[in-house]
């Protein structure tokens, strides 16, 4: 289902985002990442913290200027100079949901004003009555009600706040939503509420998601395709079932085997690939393949040559020399 003829909504081409940390050092938070997102699908993005997932999302939505590369939304470049009108139009199409339910709502504003922010900015309501009605409608959509409108964020639980954040994003009727770890800070029982809501909204409104997370089991559940990031690079991208059943990249394999499964029987009999050591610093990443320092299959060539981002099978992309005819004659 992943590779059918479908319309591309977003194309990310060789995207780079580097941060200057001091006069000399440059932190390559995102380094040459390319992928497409099709209309109506959910693309999951996973990886350990600090691998550049949020930076990718924020660069796509223009919160950061890209260092290099381009992002095309419906064929139009997202970055670069734009008139105020074009910007406003763009802001309505693409929205973001944030990770921290405590930091993502202004503590001094009522829920009504928070949700209505997009309505106010884009003048979507003619008068305050219409504004109220839209806010109440949005509250209903996310499973809250109008009694909540005049309260302040600190009176809500984490899951409720996260749903308020979703309502705020929905207020401008976007087509594409970047969800940056929307459930990481929530309890398991509450995570399911938010994920179910996101999936319901997708069905009802035909939304497209970029779903960022470090919890791989939730990502598999919600995504059609999943990309795996490591130190600013995309190392593998495939349909979610395929990725979980037949991971190609050694990092993906290790990551999948590291997830504890809520099943004692399975846990007892499970063979883990335990990665040695820690994530290297993104300021001074290893040469060649960035994963080679922790890779159980590292070869000489891995230190010298950057692995190519190529389609190992149809719809299954990977950046690893093990799957490169040129370097791995015997094939893995």
């Amino acid at each position, binding site marked *: 289902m992943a590779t059918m003829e479908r319309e591309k909504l977003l194309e990310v081409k060789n995207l780079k985002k580097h941060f200057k940390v001091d006069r000399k050092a440059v932190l390559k938070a995102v380094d040459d990442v390319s992928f497409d997102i099709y209309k109506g699908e959910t693309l999951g993005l996973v990886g350990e913290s600090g691998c550049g997932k949020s930076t990718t999302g924020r660069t796509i*939505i223009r919160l950061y200027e890209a260092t290099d590369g381009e992002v095309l939304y419906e064929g139009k470049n997202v970055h670069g100079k734009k008139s105020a009108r074009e910007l406003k139009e763009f802001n309505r199409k693409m929205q973001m949901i944030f990770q921290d339910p405590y930091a993502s709502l202004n503590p*001094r504003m009522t829920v009504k004003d928070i949700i209505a922010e*997009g309505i106010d900015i884009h003048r979507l309501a003619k008068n305050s009555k219409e504004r109220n009605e839209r806010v109440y409608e949005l509250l209903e959509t996310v499973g809250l009600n109008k009694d909540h409108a005049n309260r302040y964020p600190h009176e809500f639980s984490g899951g409720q706040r996260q749903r308020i954040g979703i309502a705020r*994003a929905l207020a401008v009727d976007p087509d594409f939503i970047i969800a940056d770890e929307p459930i990481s800070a929530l309890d398991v029982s509450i995570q399911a509420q938010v994920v179910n809501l996101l999936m319901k909204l997708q069905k009802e409104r035909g939304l497209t998601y970029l779903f960022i997370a470090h919890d791989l089991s939730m990502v598999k559940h919600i995504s059609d395709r999943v990309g795996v990031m490591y130190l600013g690079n995309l190392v593998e991208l495939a349909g979610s079932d395929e990725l979980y059943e037949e991971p190609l990249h050694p990092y993906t394999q290790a990551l999948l085997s590291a997830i504890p499964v809520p099943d004692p029987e399975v846990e007892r009999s499970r063979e883990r690939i335990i990665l040695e050591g820690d994530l290297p610093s993104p300021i001074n990443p290893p040469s060649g393949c960035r994963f080679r320092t922790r890779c159980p299959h590292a070869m000489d060539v891995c230190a010298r040559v950057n692995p190519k981002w190529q389609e190992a099978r149809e719809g299954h992309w990977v950046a690893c020399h093990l799957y490169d005819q040129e370097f791995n004659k015997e094939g893995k």
Partner: protein
Amino acid sequence: MSMTEKKLTDDMFQPAAMDPGKHEEITKPSLTYWQDVWRRLKKNKAAITGLVAIILIVIMAFVGPAISSHGFDQQDVRRTNLPPKIPGLEKVHFLGMDGVDIRGNDQYKLKNIPKDQYYWFGTDSLGRDQWTRIWKGTQISLLIAFLAAAGDLIIGVTYGGISGFFGGKVDNIMQRFVEILYGIPNLVIIILFILIFEPGILSITLAIVITGWIGMSRLVRGQILKLKGQEFILASRTLGASNGRLIMKHLVPNTLGIVIISMTFSIPGAIFFEAFLSFIGLGIQPPTASLGALISDGFKQLRIYPHLAIYPSVVMCILMVSFNLIGDGLRDALDPKMRK
């Protein structure tokens, strides 16, 4: 257990109809942030004591001069250096309110003051009523302090806000300027400033503000820098908010707390600084007096007429302590970590 066992009937094991709407119900009364702060502040006895003391002193500063029949600049050489004498309390000798000086002479008798004339806090060396002068002085001190705090507020918040909000080059240049200003000893700046302009309420206030705003601006800049990266600001930006909206709706309301705390500490600072200027002779010029000027004058005759220094000192101490108590209380009340 057997007690509860008896009360349980079979029909209690019927499924209870749960209202799904109830899941999201919030039972606590809704409180705005500031209501919550006030609720917490009310529990803090020290802060409330401070608040009451300040309110009383402010009231007295305006009412005090009026309830005494003597003007603050009425001189009369026939009644100089009288000790305090208060009707009623004059009979309780150990209070020192009986018009008797420290050597045991009843000055009122010696100077032939009519029986019905009382100087509650005594008089100074020019025969001016000390009571009236103290409250007038409190007025002036408070005026200078509030003006200075307002100056700090306006300049500090604007400067720190711009510097923090725009960041980058702008921030860099603005911060270098602050460092230079901060590098010059502020006493030098202030003394030069007052020497050039005549000492007066305005010039003293300006002198205090000229370096005082730096602290405020740093605080605000830090807060803005911290807020700028927070997700609710990012959310607002992805919605297409203009800079003006970001500042007015998001940044200002969230910096207000620390600005208020900082103000409650800069007010006593200004009072103290004004007193210091009076001590080195650069304060308010007679016949107008501030608390500092009164203490400075009284201090010269502390051994002979202690009442001249003691009463203004007491008022000033209460003021300073009260402001600090409120500041501490506010800091605790505004601290989001204590929120529940």
